[in-house]
């Protein structure tokens, strides 16, 4: 199970990649494999304000539905239109298939409780 070292993670199995003031958010390979085939993603609207740790959408798989949590505070500036027609990209390439992008206020706005790759790996191991 791959957990790229250059990303940060949430306990709810999102990954986040920060470039300047833009944060790309996706779900981890572990989450995708636990969910099974993802069939629909309810995204936050472009322009919406999201809050770290708060639900901002839903991920529906064949067998279950899960809340999608924002890892960061900010404004949604883009959602991945490719996932509208092919949500299973999340299963095929979980770290390429970003879900949405958020404009964050800067490094200072990053929540301190985001996990490193090592910490996230620990969490998935203890979850079995």
């Amino acid at each position, binding site marked *: 199970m791959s957990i790229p070292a250059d990303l940060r993670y949430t306990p709810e199995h999102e990954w986040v990649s920060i470039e300047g003031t833009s944060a790309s958010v996706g779900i981890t390979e572990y989450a995708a494999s636990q969910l*099974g085939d993802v069939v629909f993603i309810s995204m936050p609207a472009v322009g919406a304000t999201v809050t770290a740790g708060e639900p901002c959408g839903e991920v*529906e798989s*064949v*067998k279950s*539905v899960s809340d999608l949590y924002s890892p960061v505070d900010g404004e949604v500036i883009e959602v991945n239109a490719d996932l509208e027609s092919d949500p299973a990209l999340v299963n095929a390439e979980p770290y390429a298939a970003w879900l949405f992008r958020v404009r964050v206020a800067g490094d200072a706005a990053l929540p301190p409780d985001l996990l490193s790759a090592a910490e996230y790996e620990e969490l998935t191991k203890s979850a079995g």
Partner: protein
Amino acid sequence: MHERLGASLTSFAGFSMPLRYTSETAEHLAVRRAAGLFDLSHMGEILVTGPDAGAALDYALVGNLSSLAPGRARYTMICAADGGVLDDLVVYRQGEGEFMVIANASNTATVYGELAARAEGHEVLVADATDEYALIAIQGPASAGILGPLTGLDLSAMKYYAGAFGDVAGRPAWVARTGYTGEDGFEIFCRPSDAEAVWEALMAAGAPAGLVPAGLAARDTLRLEAGMPLYGNELGPEVTPFEAGLGRVVKFDKPGDFVGRSALLARAAEGPRVVLAGLTMRSRRIPRHGYPVVADDADRVGTVTSGAPSPTLGVPIAMAYLEPGDHPGLAVDIRGQAAPADLTDLPFYRRST
């Protein structure tokens, strides 16, 4: 063994069972287009044997089992005295006085207990033989072509809902043309110690034809498309076979009394209290077990029993119990939002023959 194949396992009725091997959608489509191989060893096998076996089952179950010809299978149910469904069953008549009753895993103990109690006074032996059988199902249009060369049985002569003792990959087995996917296919009951050899022989023979291992997640969407009820979803002690649209399995004209007869007669006369319906969704969110079904005026008219994205149809589908009558503007309340749905005749999918 399944963990070696990369299966994602789920705990089900005390068994560790494969939920999916790779992608449940790909497994589902493989069964529709080629074939899938399922390990269903969790299912219960109860043997009912003796000179009165047919008569005992006629009393214990709602169907007419004494009329079943040896070598044939029948879908039937076991009901409580009040008509509520205790389980749905497939019964094979393996010989004149030999029947094998297949129960859902979580109900095997109940079914065994009821059959033993209801057999009192009959010259018959009831035995829970679940531990003596593994069950491997090969399902899909390519199934006969894959299984045929591995068995001495003449599959072309085996009708749907028939079965015979024979061999698969040199191992003794009861092979039946039955299944729970809406496709042609076979169910192979063999000794647990032979199961891995049978599985591997089928995979080796079938892989070139597109056979893939398939898990319980694909099995659930396959049976839903085929409009087949699942115990715990569409069936349970709170409904009779009539609510589930399966009143035809209740045989009032068979000889003698049977458990549930008077309650079921009354229900047949007064009509079902709810009706099992098919729903096709107009949007992409998935209706799931327990979600409310509402009509135009936001009145609740029913409850979803099973729902999933249909890989064959490309839209979410569901089965639901609805109050009898017309319900304009049907919708499923999906976590607070009304998602419009269209009534659809069951089954959603029927194979072309």
